[in-house]
């Protein structure tokens, strides 16, 4: 009985390790993520039936791939219309059946397959939500339940989202490919964005009870590290990994004893994860050494590194941060970048200078419901001694955020302003 459940746990772990490249290899074969996933799952079921009795094979990944390929050949045989594919597959299956190819099946370089699968799951034809869900499912090896939990949506909605995403890819005839040149750069950028979206949902949960969901951050960093090995000459991939690692180094410090958020400048830096900081700084260096102009992720990583390099909040190099935000604002202009730049300006050149910049953003339509605009404005007003106005801004910010923990923090700051007003 115990041996049986041990085998099941081992199989689950093997699935986590192997599923992405299994699905990637099969997608290249059959052309569709949906069909590839089913074939991989069938192979998993076969493993669950056979391994508890026979023991786990020496090369479990190769076993799963060979089993799935046999089933793929059956599937394609049934789809008589795919004649060309059938011939290709027939050859491959024969090789596997020779028995000589089983080792090669696992030793083979799956790099391009994984990249092809990433490109497909992050294809621009899909909505952002769909890209995120499909990436976690087929590349992260997460179950639909786990993804649903991560994004606080019902399992049935997440299942539907994934089914619809696969259908969209099929209907749009999205091919399994690893393009070159400008197309490759554009497709990589889409993958970067999806990975960073996953990271951010874990790092600054937009909704719900928890301020952070570290499991999503870990998943995103892992995908980033895998991608960095697949496209090592791409500076931005190292910028992305650096950004995530430096941010993640603060995960533990940015949550207080009762789960409340602790803002960056108030964090106990001894609680930062210095190993991740060192890794992040090394990744940033790698991005810089590859040369060329810094991309938006490398620039954001360089900004995050300004905090990481400062032993205390007071030692932060704010003028350098302003310069980096200037570069970022030029490269990837957005009201959110402008807002962050205003914060840096406020720290480098005084709150009045920061407030001037923030005030130019107040009418910005895309920031209308963005809680950090009034939060930043409140902070600057408070520093200027305008506690009444500051309180109103913090209250507005609290009413805008969907995150319970963040709302409590903002309400507390509003209350502090009210107290300052009385004291003053």
């Amino acid at each position, binding site marked *: 009985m115990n041996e049986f459940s041990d085998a099941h746990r081992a199989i689950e772990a093997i699935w986590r*390790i192997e599923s992405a490249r299994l699905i990637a290899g099969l997608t290249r074969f059959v052309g569709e993520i949906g069909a590839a996933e089913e074939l991989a799952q069938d192979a998993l079921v076969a493993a669950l039936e056979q391994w508890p009795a026979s023991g786990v094979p020496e090369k479990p990944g190769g076993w799963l791939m060979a089993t799935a390929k046999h089933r793929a050949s059956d599937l394609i045989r049934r789809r008589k219309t795919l004649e060309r594919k059938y011939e290709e597959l027939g050859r491959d299956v024969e090789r596997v059946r020779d028995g000589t190819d089983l080792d090669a099946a696992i030793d083979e370089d799956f*790099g391009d397959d994984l990249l092809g699968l990433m490109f497909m799951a992050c294809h621009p034809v899909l909505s952002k939500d769909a890209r995120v869900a499909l990436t976690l499912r087929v590349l992260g090896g997460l179950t639909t339940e786990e993804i649903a939990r991560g994004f606080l949506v019902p399992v049935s909605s997440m299942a539907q989202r994934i089914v619809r995403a696969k259908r969209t890819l099929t209907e749009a005839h999205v091919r399994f490919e690893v393009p070159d040149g400008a197309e490759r750069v554009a497709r990589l950028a889409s993958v970067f964005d999806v990975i960073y979206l996953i990271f951010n949902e874990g790092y600054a949960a937009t909704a719900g009870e928890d301020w952070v969901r570290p499991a999503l951050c870990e998943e995103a960093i892992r995908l980033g590290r*895998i991608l960095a090995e*697949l496209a090592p000459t791409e500076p931005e991939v190292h910028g992305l990994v650096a950004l995530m690692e430096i941010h993640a180094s603060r995960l*533990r410090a940015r949550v207080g004893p009762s789960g409340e958020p602790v803002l960056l400048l108030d964090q106990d830096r001894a609680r930062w994860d210095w*190993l991740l900081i060192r890794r992040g700084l090394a990744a940033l260096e790698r991005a810089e050494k590859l040369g060329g102009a810094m991309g938006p992720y490398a620039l954001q990583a360089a900004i995050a590194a300004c905090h990481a390099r400062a032993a205390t909040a007071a030692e932060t190099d704010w003028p350098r941060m302003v310069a980096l935000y200037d570069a970022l604002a030029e490269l990837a202009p957005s009201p959110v970048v402008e807002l962050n730049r205003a914060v840096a300006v406020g720290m480098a050149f005084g709150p009045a200078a920061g407030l001037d910049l923030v005030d130019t953003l107040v009418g910005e339509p895309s920031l209308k419901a963005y809680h950090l605009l009034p939060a930043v404005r409140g902070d600057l007003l408070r520093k200027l001694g305008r506690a009444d106005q500051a309180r109103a801004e913090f209250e507005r910010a609290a009413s805008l955020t969907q995150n319970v923990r963040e709302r409590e923090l903002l309400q507390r700051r509003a209350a502090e302003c009210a107290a300052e007003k009385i004291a003053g």
Partner: protein
Amino acid sequence: MRVLVLAKEGERSGAATPPTPEGMAEYEKFNGELVKAGVVVAAGRLSPSAVGKRVRFDGKKRTVIDGPFAEAKELVAGYWLWQVRSMDEAIEWLKRAPYEGGTFEIREVSQHEGA
């Protein structure tokens, strides 16, 4: 989760028995797989315990003890820090390592303590 993998290979490491080129190639290949899978956070091999030191604490007293240390089987020859999703995943990875002797220990790094 993060796990520390301790290679308790005794004194086989270091100057006494340098690894063969084939052994090294096998190891490099395995380590490469781990890196490509985004698992490795840090790794290192340790020098023989002959050049190691121990510091023993007894109240206010500190005693420095020179290596080599006697308990050969317990001696750590190298370490890995891995980022994995479960202890089972760590076990599955470790089983694939190209070693023919020694005991390897996997310990979870507590999330709530220092890194």
